[in-house]
């Protein structure tokens, strides 16, 4: 997933001097080194799972993978959808009705 560097910066903060994010690839032995100066940030995925990241690099890695610092539960607001659909249809019909009356006159 391609994530804008600005988004990483918004969530993880400015990268510490000398640290750049490079994808570690599929190396199973890769270990994230904790940064004592880094304030732990909780991140969430779309399913609501949570993880605490201990370094800017680790944070950037998860953000690149689609994790975020806010729990966003996306659900379809059906009641609003029905309301606005019915409202729109009513307005459209009223306009159509007015126009067709004028045509008849």
């Amino acid at each position, binding site marked *: 997933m391609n994530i804008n560097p600005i988004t990483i910066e918004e969530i993880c903060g400015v990268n510490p001097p000398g640290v750049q994010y490079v994808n570690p690839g599929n190396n199973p032995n890769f270990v994230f080194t904790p940064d004592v100066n880094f304030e732990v940030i909780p991140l969430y995925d779309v399913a609501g799972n949570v993880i605490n990241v201990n370094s800017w690099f680790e944070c950037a890695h998860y953000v690149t993978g689609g994790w975020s610092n806010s729990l966003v539960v996306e659900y379809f607001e*059906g009641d*609003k959808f*029905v309301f606005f659909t*019915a409202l729109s249809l009513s307005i459209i019909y*009223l306009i159509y009705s007015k126009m067709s009356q004028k045509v*008849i006159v």
Partner: protein
Amino acid sequence: MTSTRKKITVVLLLFVILMPFWIHNSTDTVEPQRITNEFIGYYQSNTCDISLLEVYAKNIGNNNNIYYSNNYYAGTECFGKVTGLDKVGDKFIVSIGTNTSLLFLIQSIIWLLVIFLITPKNIETISFKFSMLLLPLLFTFQHVAESRFYERLNIYYQNLDMELLNNYHLLGTFCIYLLIFIILNDLLTQREEILINYLPFAFLFVFTLGGMNINFFIIILSYFGLKNILKSEGNFIFNCMYVVFSFIWLASTTRDQNSFFDGDKLRGFINSSNTKLSLIFWIVVFFLLINGVHYLHRHSHINIAKLQTNFLVTGSLVFILGTLGSTSSLFNFLNSHIFGQNKRGISELSSIAGNTWRGFSASAESLGEFYGFVLALFVILYMKFKQPVTRFEYIMLGFTTLGLYRTNNFAVMASLLLLIVIFLLEKFVNNRRIKSMIYTLGIFFFFLGMYLIVNQLNYEYLSTQLLYEASLHSNFFTYTDNYGKSLQIETLFNEERIYYLINIIGGDSISSSLRTLSEIFYQNFNLPIVPNVVALISTTSLLINRSEMWGIFIAKYSPNTLEAMFGYGPNQMNGYLYNQKVRLDVPLDKITGLYLPHSSVLDILLFFGLIGLFTGAVFTIYTIFNKSENTDYKYLLVFLLINILKSDSMLYVNSVMLLALSFHLIRTNETIIYD
């Protein structure tokens, strides 16, 4: 032009019907699978992804027993899609999401398009009056008044606890009603004179909104009702009487917050709650309904040829679609949405309860009456106008007769035959002597038959059977089980200690109606020749196979004096269903079943009391015996009256409208001609 308009409407209709059950994400990896044991888990974990038509297409030729059931409590994103799969016995039940709010919108659009298909009488339109806003407000109020009904069936349900401007459920409901009434205002104004000729279709388009306790016909009639009131055309005496009744219902009858009736097959035309708010809603709606019928009675023009054709077409379509629904699970599912069935059609071709086949309808009895009415009307019109019968009409008659045969409604068949014979006698036998001889013979054989039955079955047994059945289902001898109870009751009846059983042992624990009937049965005075009224009802109930059902009614019906005189209120059954504690003497698997009174007279008694029943009876007798230009149609009214005595048809909107039509045919001032 008209033809093009109709073609476009039909295409639109097909689109609105099928699209919601077809839409799916074709780019996802979730594919429909054959419904078998191994894919139950697959469908349970992949919810709201696979559409109904996808599943159906994938399972063409699958011999497993598949049934598509509704899931009203699903979100709009799951509409028309599989929300689960379960196996009960050998039946796979596929749950399809049909969110109540969205279904309300979709069904309303479908039915408005159906009304649009009726060619208008004029192109006049009137602007939507501000006062008409009362109607959407009234019907939205039902969602607050019957909150227990709606909160079970709509995931978005919000009561007034939520701030109104954020309550999108109520706002959405109001907007849909507003849309309906704005469009109806145009559609009905242009068609109000001819709408009556399409009334037969009420048995095809039942119009009960899915997941809701309202029927679209009530919405339509309320529109006419308000129009009647705004034009000050209402019947003054009726309206005054209704105000008095309403005041008594609101002020004096027993209400509670707890009882709840889910409506079952009466959904759409029954009060689900017993609160004051729900009572107010149904009082106003019923008032509008009667005024609506009155308005249509004054403004309608009957085209009897059209009416007859529509009856035959409906009779045939109901039978054909009922059969299709019984053989195809998809049709069975779609029928319920397109036609607004208040109960799903029967899912197999074999009969239920050992004999009847209700097919498309919620009630085999009311459908049988409809078929009988169609045949009776056909005979009357044929004899009256001598119009040649086309081949198409013969075919439709065949379907209608087959439909009547399958409902196995003996009462309809017998009364139909009897009335046709009397009609033909009146029409073709001009010699008064021969006529009176035939009638005398008929009456003689009737009484002879009665005499033989009474002699064979024993008068004691016939006259007390109703009290016996009522006692069996009452809460007697609580220390023993049903078998022990029935033995003790039987012993006391055999010893003729019925009064002792009901009034001393029963005391206050039994229904007031059972106590009253036993007092009438054991009255101190005896008029010679005149039979005891309880004995007469008991004998009748036994002869028409209603003693058990009427017995249950008596065991359950326990009104106070005011409720007995004025009823519980329009379409209010909770007082009857839950107020009186009973112990039904029926098999265990049937103990939780819905036991309706099985007589429309008793239904009217429940809702409007003895005074309401008496008023209705006077009006009916007056209609039958008053001179009319259209005497022949009185046979239709008598036919329906005979049959609704033993059926609950007055609890269904379409049957009520059929009865109203038969009154209209007699009372209309216009001379009905065949053109």
